[in-house]
């Protein structure tokens, strides 16, 4: 019996310890917001936070999260960084099919928690593990920057971006 915290609640599972966290969360705990895209750590659709770090959970065995705190999109903080990102995602109409977006937002949330004002290069590095097949990348960038600005209580470096785009 393996135990960990899922969105603040202690949960137990007797699934094989090599079962990836993603499948325990989806099939046993029935939280479907985290998605399957590749099963090989290559796309980020399955991104959750484990002890606050963004992790690709399709390749993270249950054994590795014993005793740890797992957060999924369903448990993303309804204030603060999570809310700011989600509001920005809606305002910028980031999502197309939307399938990758839970993973994108979880990765973005971990980024802004660690680095509230990332440069464009830092943003790209942090988000490069998350594929969006619909190609929402320009809007993902805009939304992260606008959420960062909101959280900082004003405009940050968005101006620099706008300048480049209008050239």
């Amino acid at each position, binding site marked *: 019996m393996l135990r960990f915290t899922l969105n603040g609640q202690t949960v137990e599972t007797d699934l094989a310890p090599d079962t990836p966290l993603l499948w325990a969360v989806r099939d046993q705990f029935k939280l*479907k917001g985290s998605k399957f*895209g590749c099963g*090989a750590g290559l796309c980020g659709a399955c991104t959750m936070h484990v002890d606050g770090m963004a992790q690709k959970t399709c390749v993270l065995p249950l054994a590795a999260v014993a005793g740890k705190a797992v957060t999924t999109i369903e448990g993303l903080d309804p204030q603060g960084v999570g809310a700011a990102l989600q509001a920005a995602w809606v305002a910028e109409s980031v999502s197309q*099919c939307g*399938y990758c977006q839970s993973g994108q937002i979880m990765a973005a949330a971990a980024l802004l928690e660690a680095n509230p004002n990332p440069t464009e290069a830092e943003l790209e590095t942090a*988000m490069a593990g998350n594929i969006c097949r*619909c*190609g*929402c990348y*320009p809007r993902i960038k805009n939304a992260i920057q606008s959420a960062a600005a909101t959280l900082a209580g004003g405009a940050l470096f968005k101006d620099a971006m706008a300048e480049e785009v209008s050239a």
Partner: protein
Amino acid sequence: MSTLSRRSFLRHSALAGGGLLVAFTLPGCSTPPSLPVPRESGDFVPNAFLKFTADGAVHFYCPRDEMGQGVTTGLTTIVAEGLDMAPQRITVELAGAHPDYANPGMGFQVTGGSTSVKEHFTQLMTVGCQLRALFLAAAAQDLGVAESALTTDDGMIVHGENRYPYAQFLATAATLTVPETVDLKAAADYRWIGTAFPRLDGEVKATGKAVYGIDIDVPGMEHAVVVRPPVFGAKVVRFDDRAAKSVAGVRTVVEIATGVAVVAEHFWQAKKGAEALTVEWSASPLDGATTASLRADYAEALAAGGEEAESTGDVATALAGATKTVDLEFWAPFLAHAPMEPMSAVVHVKGDSAELWAGTQGPGPAGALVARHAGLEPAQVMVHQTYLGGGFGRRGTLTHVVEATQISKATGTPIKLLWTREDDLRGGLYRPASLMRIRAGLDDDGRIAAWDAARAGSNITPETIRNSLPALLPGMPDGVVDFMVGLTDRLHQGWVVDHSSIEGLYEDYAVPNLAVHHVTKEHGIPVTFWRSVGHSYTAFAKEVTMDALAEAAGQDPVAFRLAHLEHNPRLAAVVAKAQEAWNGWTPAPGRHLGFAAHHSFATSVAQVAEVSVEDGAIRVHRVFCAVDCGLAINPDIVRAQMEGAIMYGLTAALHGKLDFEGGAVKQSNFHDYPILRINEAPKVEVVIMESQEAPTGVGEPGLPPIAPAVANALYRATGKRLTELPLSDALRLA
């Protein structure tokens, strides 16, 4: 103002419960199945599209499938405009299967071909306007005033200072007859159409609440993974499931038409079981095939010549007499769609009924397929449509729905079938590979005198027939389907040209002497529609050739194009718009510009790409895109579709290829089938041409110009005329 008679496509009949039903006429179908619209007493359901409830809620049953293209927002906006009610007040539902939800341009319940807004605009505007008129009439009756004293404003009936919600008049409206004719709202009065506002599905998709096929969970459901042949065309000879059955959680193993299914309590167990399964496969004609051998077959076919698809003037004489000629051969490889959500479906076959939950590009055909393989009538199948985690043409083919049905029929349990990413890349279907040749000549004035184009490869039509006939004609026996597929196949071998194989290769520019040929070469590799279909490769050949011709003519490539577009004003206008960007754009040091334009799906697009090569790697920094799609219902969604098509097209242009080795597809996941990532994504600027013309497609037309625009920029950057996709490979080998 235009007036439409609803008689052309509407009829009404009384409905039990004192309500009123407006159903769309179904030629040859006298008893339409009941609408898949759940209703409670007091609900007003005037037609298949709208439900009004007493608490003031309005539900719109969106007839087209949401795969990211924003169709739920777009079509809701149209009906909302007619109703005179903010789209945000309307709850969008994904419609189940019913003939009333057919795509008006196709007659079937299918989403694709960038047709949704184009085909539904008048229909849904009419429906909205009719309902608004009905509420006005009901309000006049209830309030005891003349209808002329009333107007509407955002879901309210307005009488002088007083405002009443539509919902107040539901009961009376339900007793009235929908007006025979209705004035459609004038474009000048649009409040929401033409305005950019956030997508209506933004919130469910930012919170993880949007439900896709993969998310469906029904009581008693089991998970299946199917082991399919490594080489297309091979069949199961025998299999050993002892090891698979000993995997914890595995419940059963069943052979189905396409392979062997392992069924387990959870997905992960099914996948482990599938890995433990040993299957012996029969030989296939494709055994041993490699990319090189397939391409050699195409080259041989192209050299032998093929069917004439188009001919004007005398291309041979014009080429012989040309001052300068260009002769280029182009290669475009097989590509997978790789939607972010791999194929998935949940099917439950019960005794005399079945249910399907999936996100497909054809809920109607999907239900019919379940019926066929479950041995039921289509009316016995309930279809639950979900969001699609990407489509791009892939979710129009429903092999996975058939597989899930066959498994559920065998187990009697609800089955969730999920393809892995490896299944997705190796299990088909693909954008067909194409070998193309264009010979073109200039006259003394530097104008194109001759355009001689040819393409060799396989056609998507036979496979489309194979996949769609069983769904569209439920009564047709399998043998007849096979016959039809074989017939189509043979017809394309020397009789007729599959237009989707050559579309876009020659149409855009004025050419006095034209010849287009096609040679069919089939290898049994399943192919289908892939975002922008034939245009995805023909535009590359056509637009690279145009740059080569412009160079030969000593002309600016954009001016050269414009000189050949006098007959084609919409394309000319977007080229001229992009020319402004082109002329005013000084690329940063080390960067170069490339241009391309293309008309597809009734929409014209021109693009400029700013490109550099850094340590041998191609980097696309910025793309300008001008588009004429007629009236833009929501300009921000048009922009998003251009951005997305550019990214999707860049993945193909820079990285995309599937190789064959020993008859099997070599690539298996995103490590060797790389998708463009955020650090490679260019900045995109989109200009939408001002237009009041009827709206046209936006899902696909943004894609075709990007590969040639990048290739043309690379020529300026490197002096190498790259004619093979993907460009990263071509540049390395050049």
